[in-house]
Structures are given as structure tokens and as C-alpha cells.
């Protein structure tokens, strides 16, 4: 699980051993592991011959590259920027918190869901909005959001 050499090798074979592949590599690892463990970061640093501190510093700049803790399989990012805020972001958050029994910033005990805030997702005309991994859900209501979460809980998100 923590061995990321395959991911790194694939990127390097594709584009060469150069600094420009750093972010694509980190993105691929996050996609698979839902965060960047210190082992992964060290492995990347070794493979690209960049200092570990530098790799960490770069990763920590980006909000979609989680370095602190392992996130759940499904990362829910609820937009908190102004228009979504006006359109009832708080109710949405409350609904999700109740539905998953976690607070914002936390991960469910079964490691399936993490709930985070995020800045503008680019759907202001259809807020409130959230992302679950790469999927967008717009015009949320507490009811709708419960339906969505439940579908994910039952692994029936394809049916949404």
C-alpha cells in the first residue's frame, strides 16, 4: 500500500526524471492513498533526487495534496465561499455531519469518508455545491445531501 515506486516509475517513464513530474506524481499517490504519507514523500524525494523538505514544502502548498493525515476513501469537500455560504452551506454541513457522525475536518472511523471545507468550486449559480472525490454535486439541500451520502454508504453512487 505504501509502496509508491510503481506510480513514480510510471510517471518518470512517461515524462522523464525531472522536477515537472513532481505534482503529477503526488496527485497520483493522493488519488490512490488519499494522502501523502511521510514514507511516500521520502520515496518521491529519493526518486527525483529532490530534498525531502522541498517535496514536503511543495506538497503542503496545495490544498488537494493532503500531507497531515490519511483521508477517507471518499473526500467530501463542501464549498464555503461566499455564494455557497449564502445559499445554505451551513445546513449542508450539518446534514453531512449528522449523517456521518463526524465533525468538519474529521474522517469516519471506517475510513470511508472525510469531510472538509474548500474554497470556490466554480458552481456559484448552482450552490450549495460539494465535491466527492472528483464528482460534483450541485444545488444541494439537506435532503439531497443525505440521499447522496447514503448512496455512497451503500456503494450505490453510480445510481445517483
Amino acid at each position, binding site marked *: 500500500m505504501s509502496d509508491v515506486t510503481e506510480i513514480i516509475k510510471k510517471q518518470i517513464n512517461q515524462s522523464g526524471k525531472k522536477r515537472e513530474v513532481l505534482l503529477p506524481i503526488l496527485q497520483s499517490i493522493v488519488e490512490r492513498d488519499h494522502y501523502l504519507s511521510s514514507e511516500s514523500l521520502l520515496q518521491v524525494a529519493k526518486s527525483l533526487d529532490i530534498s525531502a523538505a522541498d517535496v514536503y514544502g511543495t506538497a503542503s502548498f496545495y490544498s488537494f495534496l493532503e500531507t497531515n493525515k490519511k483521508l477517507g476513501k471518499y473526500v467530501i469537500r463542501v464549498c464555503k465561499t461566499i455564494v455557497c455560504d449564502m445559499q445554505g452551506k451551513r445546513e449542508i454541513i450539518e446534514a453531512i455531519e449528522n449523517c456521518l457522525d463526524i465533525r468538519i475536518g474529521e474522517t469516519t472511523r471506517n475510513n470511508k469518508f472525510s469531510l472538509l471545507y474548500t474554497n470556490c468550486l*466554480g458552481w456559484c449559480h448552482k450552490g450549495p455545491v460539494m465535491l466527492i472525490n472528483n464528482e460534483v454535486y450541485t444545488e444541494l439541500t439537506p435532503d439531497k445531501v443525505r440521499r447522496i451520502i447514503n448512496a455512497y454508504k451503500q456503494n450505490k453512487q453510480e445510481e445517483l
Partner: protein
Amino acid sequence: MSKNSLKRLDIIFAPYSTSPYKLLSELLKKDKDAIIQELIESGLKGRGGAGFLTGLKWKLAKEAKGNEKYVICNADEGEPGTFKDREILSQVPRKVFSGMALCASIIGANKGIIYLRAEYNFLKKDLQKEINIFEAEAKKLNLDFSIEIFSGSGAYVCGEETALIESMEGKRGEPRNKPPFPVVNGYLGKPTVVNNVETFVSARMVCSIGAKEFNKFGIHGQKGSKLFSISGDTPKGGVYELELGLTVQDLVDEFGDGDTKAVQVGGVSGFCVPRKSFAKRTIGFTGKFTGDSLPTGGSIMIFNSSRSMYNVLHNYLDFFCEESCGQCTPCRVGVQQLLLGIEAIKANNKPSSYLKTLVKLADTMRVSSKCGLGQSIANSFQSIVEEFTEEIIY
């Protein structure tokens, strides 16, 4: 139409002709300098919000020495209230690719990169399909130009072109010192054009209809048209193509919910216009920051009278506290001071006169920050604080 001068267009999203890259093949035959001339005459400015003359950018990149050059499409659409680039990429990506290809052939680049924000990852699959189609088409046209997608990782500041380049180079997305500008020293040190998604589409449009036709659009002395992303307290949120030069009043009449008290033009880095100024503020590109005309990437957020402007401002500052890259003092520390400052005034921990100190601080941030992000925080801060002083204090 007598009172409301708002004019809707439907060019950008108009469906492709039967042969989607026919126009491109024709444009590629045109004289390169003539195209640049056409673009300059059209006055087309960057559609991301900063408003640099597109023709001039291409001209500088064309003149820059270098055997390798890059065309980068800035799809890091992070400005709150903006979502038109996403619409363009999902509806008419071929127009974007055509614009990029045109730019590449003019400046002498054979590599194009779309910097797609992480939040738009869901577009990747379809975009890649479209890129494959484009590249097959390019082959037929004998055009040595390929496009690839580079995914962002979640950082608003990467919309700033030099931060975007840093990010593509695998580094922290921190804006660079300018000069040198990317047209001379950009991605990997090579001459690079970075343009917003819409700019490529508009450039293609100008080249196809000509500067003269393009300049027929526009009201109140402004030229051209652009996309607006309308959101907030409106029953008609969405993306609209409108002629530039319209007044805020025009927008409110068309999109407001009848109770509009303020309109935020240009996203959180733009200006907040209060009701009393709706009629006199026009939207376009010729004015200076505080002039009558407001430059914009097209973000229009409408607030009705139920909204607390303190909450609005607080939300903006919170956003900037997180999204500043943090490298320069005025932006990193200044925005924290603005946020803490209004909180302290609200809580009576600071006298209301402290607001004046904060307004002056915002001036300093405007003139001394390293990049456009820090420089523009003052826009929303000052316009809200000055127009809604009571709401901020009490």
C-alpha cells in the same frame, strides 16, 4: 431596450460549423503579423480579469528569442463567482484549442498545456477525448502542435500566470518577480503565452470576424463582448455573453431579484458596488481601478438586502487568508490584520476609528504586494468598508 442597454450575444457558445476546424485551417493561412495587428486593433484584453492586451502579449512572445516556446491555457478558474471557463471547456473546447493553435503558430510554439484546476478534474476525460480529435485534425493540417492537460492541486493563487508556471514546474505556486515576464522567460525559462480560456476563444473570434466587427459590440464607449458568470441573489444564475460597457444597473434590472443592495463585480478581488452607484458604474476594461468602468473576469455576485455585508467581507478575507501564497509581507500579514481588525471592531475591542487604519493598510497592500492577488484585496475591502461602514462597525 430603451432603459436597459444590456445586450446579449451568443457567439462564444454558438455551435461549431459542420467542420469544426475549418475556421482554424483558414486562419492558419493568414499572415501572422496581420493577425497580431488585428488583435491589437480589436483592443481585446485578457478575459481572466487582469486585462492585458492580448495582441501585444502574442506579439512580444513572437518577438522573443527561443527555439522552444509554450502556449498555456489558464483554466485555473478560482475567482469566486466565476464559472464561465468551465462552461466553455465543457461546451466548446474546440474553440479553445483553435485559439491555442493559432497563438502557437504565430509565436512559434509547438506545445500547448491546459492548466486545469483540480476542482475541474471531472472535465479531464472528455477534454482528453477532444484533444485526441484535435491532434488528429492538426496532423491533417500539417500543424506541429500538441496539447496536454496539467492538473492543478488546489491553490487559487495559481491563476496568477507566474504562479501557474511555477506550479507546472513542480514548485510551490508562488508568483515570481516581474520583470522578466513570461512572454520572455516563462515555463522552463522559455517564452510563454499564458491566456485565460475565454481569451483564446475571443481571439479566435476576433480573427474570424475582424477587429472592425468585434468593435461594433460594446456600449457606452466600451468595445467587444465577454462572458459573465451571474450568481448570488438572482433567479437567473448562469453564464451570459454580454456586450461590454453595460452598467451595473443593467445587470441588476436583468438579473436581480428586485431587492438588490450590492453587486460584487470581478469576484472577491473586484469591487463591491452599492445600490446608489448602480447607474453610474459601467463594466469594461478602459477605466482604471477606481474609475467609472470596472475591469472584470466576468464574476457578478448579487447581494440582496437580507445579506450582511460584514459577513460578506468576512468571508472574502477568510478566503484570502487561506489563498494568499504567503510569501510577501503585505499580503500574508496584511490580510490577517484586515480580518482580525474588522472582528475586533465588531466586538468592540477596537474603536471604529481603527477602520481608517485598516483602509490605509489596504492602500499599502494595493501598492506594495508582489502580485495581483495581494494588490486587489484592497478593492473589495475598501469598497465594502466605505460603502457599508455602518454594517461593518455595528
